[in-house]
C-alpha cells in the first residue's frame, strides 16, 4: 500500500500540485490525465528525485518522505525501480552491464527474479552484448524495464514508458508489461495519458487534472461514471471484465462471456479461459424499444434502462443500461430520448456495434 499526500508549487509558471491518494499494495495503479497535470511530478516525488514542499509518502509501514518530521529517504535507498519515457540506458555500458547495474547494488537478501529469468521474460537475450545506441526504441524500453526489475524494487514506477514509441513498437512492448503485471507481488505505479494502456494494464485509476485528484478507484468503477471528464471523450464507455468462452473458427467468431451475457467478436488468438477486459464505448451502443431485426450487428442484448443522465453536451444524454449485473453506457441524443419515450425501468435492446478488446480493439 502506497499512501501519498503532497503539495508543491513550482516557482516558474506557478503550477501547483496538491494531491492525496492511496495505491493498493498489488496490481497496477495508473495515474491518468492530460500532460502538465502533475503525473510525472508525483512519480519523481515517490522515486525521491524531487523534494515536495510539504506532504508525506508512505509505503507499507515505511516512511519515504515526511516534511513535518524532516524525513527524506534518498532515491538510492527507496528501492523504487523507475522506467522513464526515454529509457535512459547508460550509453557507455553494454546491455548486459546496464541490466546488472541495479542488480549488483540491490541489498543482499532482496528477493526478485534473476538475470536469466528477466532476460527471458523480456526476450532480450540476443541484445546482451550490444550497446544501447544500436537498439530500437522498443528494445531499449524492454532493456530499461529489465534493468529496473533487476534492481529488486519493492515498487515499480513507470513514466509513460510507451509514449515515445510508435504503434508497432508499442504493440511489441505492451505484452511484456501485461506479462509483468500478471506476475503477482510487485505493485506498479503507471503514468500515462493513453486510455488504451489504462484499459490493458490498470487495476486502479487515479484521475488527475491541473495538479489535483479528480477521482480514484477501481478502473471499471470510474469508467462507468458519467460525471468525470472521461465521459466527454470520444472513447468514453464502460470496461467489462470477461473470459474468452469459445472460438468458432468456421464462423470466424469468438465468444466473450461476462456477468449477465456474452459478446461475439471477430476471432481472437487468446485461448479459451483467458481473462481480459473489453471497452464498450458509449457511442457504439444504440438502443431499440422493439426487438431489432435485419441488422448486421452481432451483439443485441436484452437490457433494462436503469437511469438517464446528463450527457457530454446539453443535447445528448447517457443511458445507463443493466445487462444482468453488468452496466452498459449508451450515448444518445436528447431527441431520441423524447422520440422513443424512454423512461427508467423500461425493457430495451442494447445494440452494441463495437467491442474493444484489450489492446488494439476489435469490432463485432
Amino acid at each position, binding site marked *: 500500500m502506497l499512501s501519498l499526500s503532497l503539495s508543491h508549487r513550482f516557482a516558474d509558471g506557478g503550477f501547483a500540485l496538491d494531491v492525496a491518494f492511496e495505491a493498493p499494495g498489488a496490481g497496477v495503479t495508473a495515474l491518468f490525465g492530460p500532460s502538465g497535470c502533475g503525473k510525472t511530478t508525483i512519480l519523481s516525488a515517490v522515486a525521491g528525485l524531487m523534494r515536495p514542499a510539504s506532504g508525506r509518502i508512505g509505503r507499507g509501514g515505511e516512511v519515504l518522505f515526511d516534511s513535518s518530521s524532516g524525513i527524506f529517504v534518498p*532515491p538510492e535507498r527507496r528501492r523504487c525501480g523507475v522506467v522513464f519515457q526515454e529509457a535512459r540506458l*547508460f550509453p*557507455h555500458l553494454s546491455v548486459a552491464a546496464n541490466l546488472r547495474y541495479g542488480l549488483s*547494488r540491490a541489498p543482499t537478501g532482496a528477493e526478485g527474479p534473476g538475470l536469466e529469468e528477466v532476460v527471458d521474460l523480456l526476450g532480450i537475450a540476443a541484445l546482451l552484448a550490444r550497446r544501447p545506441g544500436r537498439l530500437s526504441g522498443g528494445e531499449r524500453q524492454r532493456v530499461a524495464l529489465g534493468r*529496473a526489475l533487476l534492481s529488486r524494487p519493492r515498487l515499480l514506477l513507470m513514466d509513460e514508458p510507451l509514449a515515445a514509441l510508435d504503434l508497432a513498437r508499442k504493440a511489441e512492448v505492451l505484452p511484456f508489461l501485461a506479462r509483468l503485471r500478471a506476475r503477482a507481488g510487485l505493485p506498479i505505479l503507471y503514468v500515462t495519458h493513453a486510455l488504451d494502456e489504462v484499459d490493458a494494464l490498470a487495476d486502479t485509476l487515479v484521475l488527475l487534472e491541473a495538479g489535483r485528484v479528480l477521482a480514484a478507484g477501481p478502473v471499471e468503477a470510474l469508467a462507468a461514471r458519467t460525471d468525470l471528464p472521461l465521459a466527454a471523450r470520444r472513447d468514453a464507455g464502460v470496461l467489462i471484465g470477461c473470459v474468452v468462452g469459445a472460438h468458432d473458427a468456421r464462423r470466424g467468431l469468438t465468444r466473450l462471456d461476462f456477468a449477465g451475457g456474452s459478446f461475439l467478436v471477430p476471432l481472437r488468438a487468446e485461448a479459451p479461459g483467458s481473462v481480459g477486459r473489453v471497452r464498450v464505448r458509449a457511442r457504439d451502443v444504440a438502443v431499440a424499444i422493439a426487438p431489432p431485426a435485419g441488422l448486421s450487428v452481432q451483439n443485441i442484448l436484452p437490457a433494462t434502462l436503469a437511469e438517464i443522465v446528463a450527457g457530454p453536451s446539453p443535447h445528448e444524454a447517457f443511458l445507463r443500461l443493466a445487462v444482468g449485473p453488468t452496466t452498459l453506457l449508451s450515448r444518445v441524443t436528447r431527441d431520441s430520448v423524447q422520440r422513443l419515450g424512454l423512461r427508467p425501468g423500461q425493457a430495451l435492446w442494447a445494440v452494441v456495434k463495437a467491442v474493444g478488446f484489450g489492446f488494439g480493439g476489435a469490432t463485432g
Partner: protein
Amino acid sequence: MTMGWLSPEEWDAVRLSLSVSLRAVAVSLVPAVFIAWLLVRGRFPGRVLLDALVHLPLVVPPVVVGWGLLMLFGVRGPIGAPLLEWFGVRLVFTSEAAALATAVMSFPLIVRAVRLGIEAVDPGLEATARTLGAGRFDTFLTVTLPLMSPGILAGAVVAFAAGLGEFGAVITFASNIPGETQTLPLAIYTATQTPGGDAIAARLAGISFALALAGLLLAELIARRMHRLLGRG
C-alpha cells in the same frame, strides 16, 4: 626547413618542456575535474566568484601570475617559507616551479574543457543511477566520470599542448636556467638574443610547432574515438 641534429642543450629543452607540461597536467587534472563539477552541478554562494577566479590566469598577464607565485612560494613567501623550514623544499628556480607555473596557467583551459564534458552528461542518467541504488559518489564514478571522460581527455591534451609554450609565468617564477627550467620557449627566446642563434631558434620553433600540432590532432582523434565508444555517433 631542415631539422638536422639537435645539440644536447637543445634536447634538454625539448625533454624538459615535455616533462614540465606533463607534470603540470598531472597536478591540475584532479582539482580541475572537481572544480568543473562544482561549477556545473554545484549550488552554493560564491559560485560566480569561483568561476572568475579560475579564469583569472587567462586574462591576467602571465608575468603577473609568475610574480604572484614568486611572492607566495619565494623563500620568504607565506607558503614558500614554511615549505623550506618544515620540509626543506625550495621551489623557486627549479623545474617543479616551472611545472607549477605551467599548471596554474593551463588550469582554466582544463576546467573549461571538463566543464563542456560534464554539461554533455544528461542529468537524467545520473538520476536513473540513483534510483538503481547508486549513491552520489558511486553515481559520479560509474556514470558521470565515464561520460565526461572525452572532456577530461580533451582538456588534458589541450593543456599539455599549451603548457609546452608557457613563457611569461615560467621565466618569472622559475627563471631561465638551462637544463633545469629552460623549456622550449625560453630556449627559443635565449637563442634569438644570442648572436648567430637564428638557426637554433628556427629548429626549436619547428619542434614547438610540430609538438603543438601533434597534440591537437591527438586530442581530436581521442575525442572521436571516445564519442563512438560512448554511443554518441
